[in-house]
């Protein structure tokens, strides 16, 4: 199998999308009162920190940022699949009665978000959970939608979307890999 990849969003594009999402967050919530950000490991955590940076630039307030590892809440653990590595969940603040904005890089089937919401609720009872994603690629398997979308990307189910970020030592870009059979 060979694959060809094409860039759908470059560094500038990612920056602009996040700026717009930041403005939408402020608009929808009429400011930043009681807001917290929780990123889903790994990509979502970096994006949550970037969003926190943008929100600080615009409104001057610093939001708490947490990290969620959803491995222990996955619904496919008993299926025949490779064993996922368990990483650390770090939420150093109380989320009860707060508005939590979950942040992830790619929204696909929605199963990750389901797991993330279940885990969040084990940490407390947030007043509201909102969802921000950089890419919405469609093909939902659960009734879940994002409140903030950086870019909607129509894809075929077998295609692969990857968000590469400089925090992971990559050049900022979003690529779509198109699997071609020989």
């Amino acid at each position, binding site marked *: 199998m060979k694959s060809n990849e094409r860039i759908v969003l470059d560094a500038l594009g990612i920056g602009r999308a996040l700026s717009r999402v930041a403005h939408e967050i402020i608009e929808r919530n009429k400011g930043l009162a009681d807001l917290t950000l929780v990123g889903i490991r790994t990509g979502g955590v970096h994006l949550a920190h970037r969003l926190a940076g943008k929100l600080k630039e615009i409104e001057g307030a610093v939001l708490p940022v947490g990290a969620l*590892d959803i*491995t*222990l*809440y996955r619904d*496919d*653990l*008993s*299926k*025949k*699949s*490779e*064993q*996922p*590595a*368990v*990483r*650390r*969940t*770090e939420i150093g603040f109380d989320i009860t009665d707060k508005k939590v904005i979950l942040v992830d*890089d*790619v929204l*696909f089937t929605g199963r990750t978000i389901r797991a993330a919401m*279940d*885990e969040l609720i*084990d*940490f*407390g009872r947030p007043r509201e959970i909102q969802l921000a994603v950089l890419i919405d*690629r469609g093909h939902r398997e659960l009734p879940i939608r994002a409140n903030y979308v950086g870019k909607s990307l129509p894809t075929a189910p077998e295609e*692969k*979307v*990857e968000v590469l970020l400089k925090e992971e030592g990559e050049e900022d870009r979003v690529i779509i890999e198109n699997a071609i059979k020989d």
Partner: protein
Amino acid sequence: MPLKTKDLISIKDLDRDELRLILDTAESFKEVGTREIKKVPTLRGKTVVNLFFEPSTRTRTSFELAAKRLSADLVNISASGSSAAKGETLLDTARNIEAMQADLIIVRHPCAGAPLLLARKMTSAVINAGDGAHEHPTQALLDLFTIRERKKTFEGLTVVIVGDILHSRVARSDIHALRMVGATVRVVGPPTMIPREITDWGAEVFYRFDEALKGADVIIILRLQLERQGRSLYPTFREYSNLYGLTPRRLALAKDDAMVMHPGPINRGVEISPDVADGLSSVILSQTTNGVAVRMAVLYLLSVGARADEAGPGSDEK
């Protein structure tokens, strides 16, 4: 990267990378223990059986909490209340448990090799929770976890294990694990309690506690097994305590930041003085806390996903 082994019978079932994987995974599970709701749904629907043919409170409870925090269903079977007392063989007992669709069986048995026998005959995963004087692998894993938590690395560490090495499954597992990660291991105790083959395991032998303590980073004290008294391994309690008890004076011979460990239960005033047991160097209670996290990691790694030899394609593509 999953574990290659179906069971955990001996530290030798693991390689260095797998050992590190277990310790790293345990770090994530330790965080779960600090939450208000100390429970994750990971092993929902799995059945875990604690099959204990020897008395145990700490280890049994530790496995029980680990399984419950992972949402598995757990059943405790102890020798006194079981059909073993009615003459059923170990294998028959185990086959009946397996027939009830147990996924994981945790075994403690007075005979070395009993868990291995079960592991070979059964499809369920078997975890050795101590077999005779053979091994107690999860104790060694939690000891390593506790050492790494405080010392950050194993390179260049000198670990002293003191007491009845001959009868100690904790000592065997600890020595194998510590050698695997590159620590220097010294064992010390009365000559009657040091097995002859010890040097083959890569440990240095001492008979004088004071000498062994010089430059030590970690001191692991073994419990003086009172139930073995009368087997002429040492003349009196008091003499043993004088020669091999860890007192503040002796502790001062080790490095300033030396840590003191004990698998429990401790005999205060015998192998460890109360001042040391309750002192700043003691990490005995951290060992107990860490035991639950390490056992959660072992339960998770042995029961989730396919093993390396049968892994299919990943299902988490974005």
